[in-house]
């Protein structure tokens, strides 16, 4: 991480604040994306190390807006890497995730035994009422299917096993 000590880390903080400032109850990215968050991002994405170092090089000056402008004009790949590092560091931070109400991609049980709301509301029946929408290659026209079920209850009754 030596290449991101000192000037480059300061430049990263300044650009982070420029892109994502504190507002609307959210902290600035400069206050969140510290050396630890940077290490987390680069641990997942070591390929970003080079373009990030280029985007933070001292000769682009101290003004974050001017740095972003120069990168947008001449080095879009380095700009994209810089943006991804800042956004990645910010939105993987535990406190930020709490503020946006996100716990990561969660495991949610599929309750396939419950009647779906779209069936309860009759939305499938509306589709079935209109009949087939596929084109019959033998006629070139919208298919006509004799005795096509017009409600889901009919469709279900047609396929239910016979009762003794």
């Amino acid at each position: 991480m030596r290449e991101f000590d000192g000037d480059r880390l300061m430049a990263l903080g300044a650009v982070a604040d420029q892109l994502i400032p504190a507002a609307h109850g959210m902290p600035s990215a400069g206050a969140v994306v510290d050396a630890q968050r940077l290490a987390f991002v680069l641990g997942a994405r070591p390929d970003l190390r080079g373009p990030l170092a280029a985007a933070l090089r001292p000769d682009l000056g101290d003004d974050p807006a001017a740095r972003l402008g120069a990168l947008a004009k001449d080095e879009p790949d380095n700009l994209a890497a810089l943006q991804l590092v800042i956004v990645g560091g910010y939105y993987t931070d535990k406190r930020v995730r709490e503020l946006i109400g996100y716990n990561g991609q969660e495991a949610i049980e599929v309750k396939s035994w419950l009647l779906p709301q779209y069936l309860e509301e009759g939305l499938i029946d509306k589709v079935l009422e209109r009949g087939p929408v596929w084109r019959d290659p033998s006629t070139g026209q919208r298919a006509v299917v004799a005795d096509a079920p017009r409600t889901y209850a009919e469709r279900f009754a047609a396929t239910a096993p016979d009762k003794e």
Partner: protein
Amino acid sequence: MAVEPADVLIIGAGASGAVVAKRLAEAGFKVVCLEQGDWVNKNDYPGTRPDWELRARKEWATSPNVRGLPADYPVDDSDSPVAPLMYNAVGGSTIIFAGAWPRALPSDFRVKSLDGIADDWPISYFDLLPYFYKTDRDFGVSALPGNPGYPPDTEDAPMPPLPIGAAGLKVARAHAKLGWHWWPEMNSINSIPYDGRRPCVQRSTCQSGCNEGAKASTDATHWPKAIALGARLVTGARVSRILTNDAGLATGATWLDSDGNEHFEPAKVVVLAANAIGTPRLLLLSANSRFPDGLANSSGLVGKRLMMHPFANVAGLFEEPLMSWQGQFGDLIESLEFYETDEKRGFVRGARWGMAPTGGPINAALPSRAGEQAWGPDHHVHFKTHFGHGANWGLFGEDLPDETNTVVLSKSLRDSSGIAAPEIHYHMSENTRRMLDFHIERAKESLIEAGAFKIEVDRLMRYSGWHLLGTARMGDDRESSVVDKWNRAHDVPNLYVVDGSVFVTSSGVNPTSTIVAIALRAAEHMVETRFEQQVAS
């Protein structure tokens, strides 16, 4: 000591290769498969990790050029607005596909007869129907039966449908008002425990591998069974060419291991299952004095007619939270309302719409697919507007075959084994542009009716070449096709192609369900005609 030849050598362990391997192993064939990738441990899938979105953009990217893993080969796609996507491992692209499982429709097999353009297939939807049912059971499909977008089925999907989510419900209600078709999507993702695999948990990380094993990928659904039946799967085996004898029959394939050592795998029959870029690449690499333009290429069509389903995305933003970062990525719902030709629209054929989740917070914070971005104080407003508040219609336009859309061998780019890489040349037709423009407008109407306060459109997404099709088409006429209706090469009677290369036209739907049904049909025919199969002596 000479190695006894395999009855069948399969090149590629993805969707179609696995289907053929399992069926032939069941029938007692001695099966060998060469796969350039390796097994992937599902514990390595990043979906449960906090850095999932970061890794999904690099080592789990869908483009081999972005990923650049040792198993990948580069594709020169600089002359294409659409980048081809794939995954090289046991399971192939089923590792990273979304799991949507629609079938091609009956009209898709009769495009010339119905619309006077492109070509008809030598087989029909109804020829494939028994194989659709079998592959639905083998892969494990969840669906609501009775979709009037298709002919009535005589067999229902083996599992009930997955949830459609808050976004799907909102749009379903809108389509009820509009009188437009919609239906819960058919997905090859378990909704209940099935075949020893767990049900979906709605994590929405399907495209970087399913941590639950709920999504069907052939490393889980087919290969363990095929191997138990005696099939031999060799990983890390990059095939460099298929060899033929003086009689023009295939004798096997040469391949390179990861250390660069060359091997030869002899076989009585060779089956190519390497996708519509890898397969023509290998056929062209296998040129010899008898087949100077590439193997099985007397028609000149190997590598031509590449189709990739140009893809547009229409996103609606809603005031109320939809938690749209969760849910199966396969698809929540679909619409076939505008799938069939209506010439009054100014183009022929159509597009399927599929609604998928919208991604995690990093995706919401970065510039959107439509190019929308907001930095500075407005960033937080932009984020809160997008994150979990979106419903996306993905529009797959039917891509008509065009002989100028090609896969050729690069003269300069090589893979890590030193083999010529494929180079693609692809453009989108005027018919397709008009088609996508029409569908974008209708999808906007759908989302506005559903209550969207803002619509964002990506008119042609670059990283959308999931569906690789058409580069070794099937047909009855050997002068205008590469393989016959049983997937056998016209020129080489013991060479088969079973991947999406054989598609005559592209349909407008996700093709994996149709690819594997065609592959199973070919395998069944190989079993039935085993004693008539010509092989190299």
